[in-house]
């Protein structure tokens, strides 16, 4: 669904990505991990079409990213950026229904159904009728998640809308909603054959909900594969510069549990 080959990216004089390749298939969740400034958001920016790659190429649904204009791109992928900054007075449903803007042909009843479904997935159905600015930061984050879920689901009947790019979607959420948001993303990937890429800081959340992980350090790939293969004391030391122990998870022996010292 998304193929990136030998990506390089420069921001001003600084090289932020060097030779990063990844393959993200339909129905799969890929987690991107790394320290602050490791290039996670730059990678997401290049895949979203916000930043131009200086090397390599990105294919979305088999077509080069550079060939797709904004409108076409919006029908192929939805992006949840870090820390949204909406300071205007809109209702929750108005914000969520913006996800249907790439599909102006949708009937109002379809829009309503999508909004309701997405808010249910984001545990935000009880926000209906409230103003966005009256919600807490974590609640706003869930509303924004619902908005991108709407965008990615709205294209299903048209045969588009397959990729969901999430930049630290759990940053301001409580533990329960961290789990439920990633569970929702995971289930959507499976049921709707979406390709989900998720930048995360919590290593154990990533191990729990991602099929594969990409570890970045200084813009380069440190490890790329299944969580159990990727999360080792060596790679974690390399990525985060602190010692870490990796033990089998008490509830699921196949899953690694990372303990930082």
């Amino acid at each position, binding site marked *: 669904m998304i193929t990136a080959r030998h990506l390089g990216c420069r921001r001003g004089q600084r090289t932020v990505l060097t030779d990063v390749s990844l393959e993200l298939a339909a129905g799969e969740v890929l987690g991107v991990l790394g320290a602050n400034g490791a290039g996670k958001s730059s990678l997401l920016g290049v895949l979203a079409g916000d930043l131009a790659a200086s090397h390599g190429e990105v294919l979305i649904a088999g077509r080069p990213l550079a060939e797709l204009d904004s409108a076409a791109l919006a029908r192929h992928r939805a992006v949840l*950026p870090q820390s949204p900054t909406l300071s*205007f007075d809109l209702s929750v449903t*108005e*914000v969520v229904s*913006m*996800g249907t803007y790439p599909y102006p042909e949708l009937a109002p009843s379809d829009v309503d159904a999508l909004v309701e479904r997405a808010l249910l997935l984001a545990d935000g159905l009880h926000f209906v009728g409230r103003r966005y600015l009256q919600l807490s930061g974590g609640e706003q984050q869930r509303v924004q998640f619902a908005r991108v879920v709407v965008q990615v689901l709205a294209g299903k009947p048209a045969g588009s809308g397959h990729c969901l790019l999430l930049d630290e979607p759990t940053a301001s959420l409580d533990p329960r909603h961290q789990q439920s948001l990633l569970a929702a993303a995971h289930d959507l990937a499976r049921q709707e054959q979406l390709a989900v890429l998720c930048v995360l800081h919590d290593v154990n959340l990533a191990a729990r909900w991602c099929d594969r992980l990409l570890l970045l350090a200084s813009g380069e790939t440190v490890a790329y594969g299944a969580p159990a293969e990727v999360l080792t004391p060596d790679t974690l030391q390399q990525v985060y510069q602190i010692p870490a122990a990796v033990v089998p998870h008490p509830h699921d022996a196949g899953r690694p549990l990372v303990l930082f010292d």
Partner: protein
Amino acid sequence: MSAVTTPTISLPPGPRWTAPRLCAVLALLLVATLLAAAASGAVNIPLSALPGLLLGVPDTPDGAMWHSVLWQVRLPRVLFAVLVGGGLALAGAAMQALFRNPLAEPGLVGISAGGALGAVAAIVLGGANFTLMAPAAFVGSLLATLIAYRLGRIGHGMDSILLAGVAINAICWAIIGLFTYLANDAQLRTLTFWNLGSLAGATWPLLAFLGPWTVLICALLLRDWRAMNALLLGEREAHHLGFALKPLRRRLIVLTALLVGPLVAATGTIGFVGLVVPHLVRLVLGADHRGLLPTAILAGALALALADWLARTVVIPSELPIGVVTSLIGGPFFLWLLTRGGAR
């Protein structure tokens, strides 16, 4: 600038108006205001005579005179107020969305200052030639906007366009000051009058040109309500939702200049309508542009029709410049809103 949190005013939570209902109320108020404004002035026409006069000439001694006052003077003037008020308010709403700043207005990118400079240059250099003033104002407003946009694009995004606009405004007002210094007494009077704004230039031929033009540009701007909503989320988010930023910015700025330029050229500078009216509508309806844009047009039309009615009637037989009325009422009203305790 977009990252800076600007003070906004909020209403206490409660039952909200819907856009259709508010539009209906505003439309009724507008019609009532237009009828009342058309009837009053130096020559007072009884309201009971209005229906007859609108349909034909009644056979009363005063009928012929009322008929000519109504059709030659009052009707073009109140319709002009609708056109200018609606256009300025819509342009303000579009600029506030584009800059993601509730304090933005068309003047920000040099539209008003450029128009004023063009008009003043025509007055002083062209010897108070009125046929030259309107085209010069129009060209001035377009040129100033274009320069601000061009220079701003070299930098990064809307912030640098805004800063370029500030500089263009300063330069324009400085040159206007220079012309003021050079002007003779007669030119100075015209110049002052123009700077304060007036709807006295309303004639049917002017309306026949400005009417369709304004309606066309308004319709084009109304079509962009989705893009304006998306811009509220952020420029990056608007791109993610499928709106190509550069063409969108260019379209909104050019449409605003094409909308406001001719209006400023025909009326002079009329302050505060473009800033306050969208702000007020947003207070009542929220920021969803689907309802905000059409409601702002109606509210702007109503505001300017009321202001012009006042401007014409408080000092009969003379009249006040309408820019003075809008700023004199709009300014304190805005301050009252800010200090009412609802400010965040």
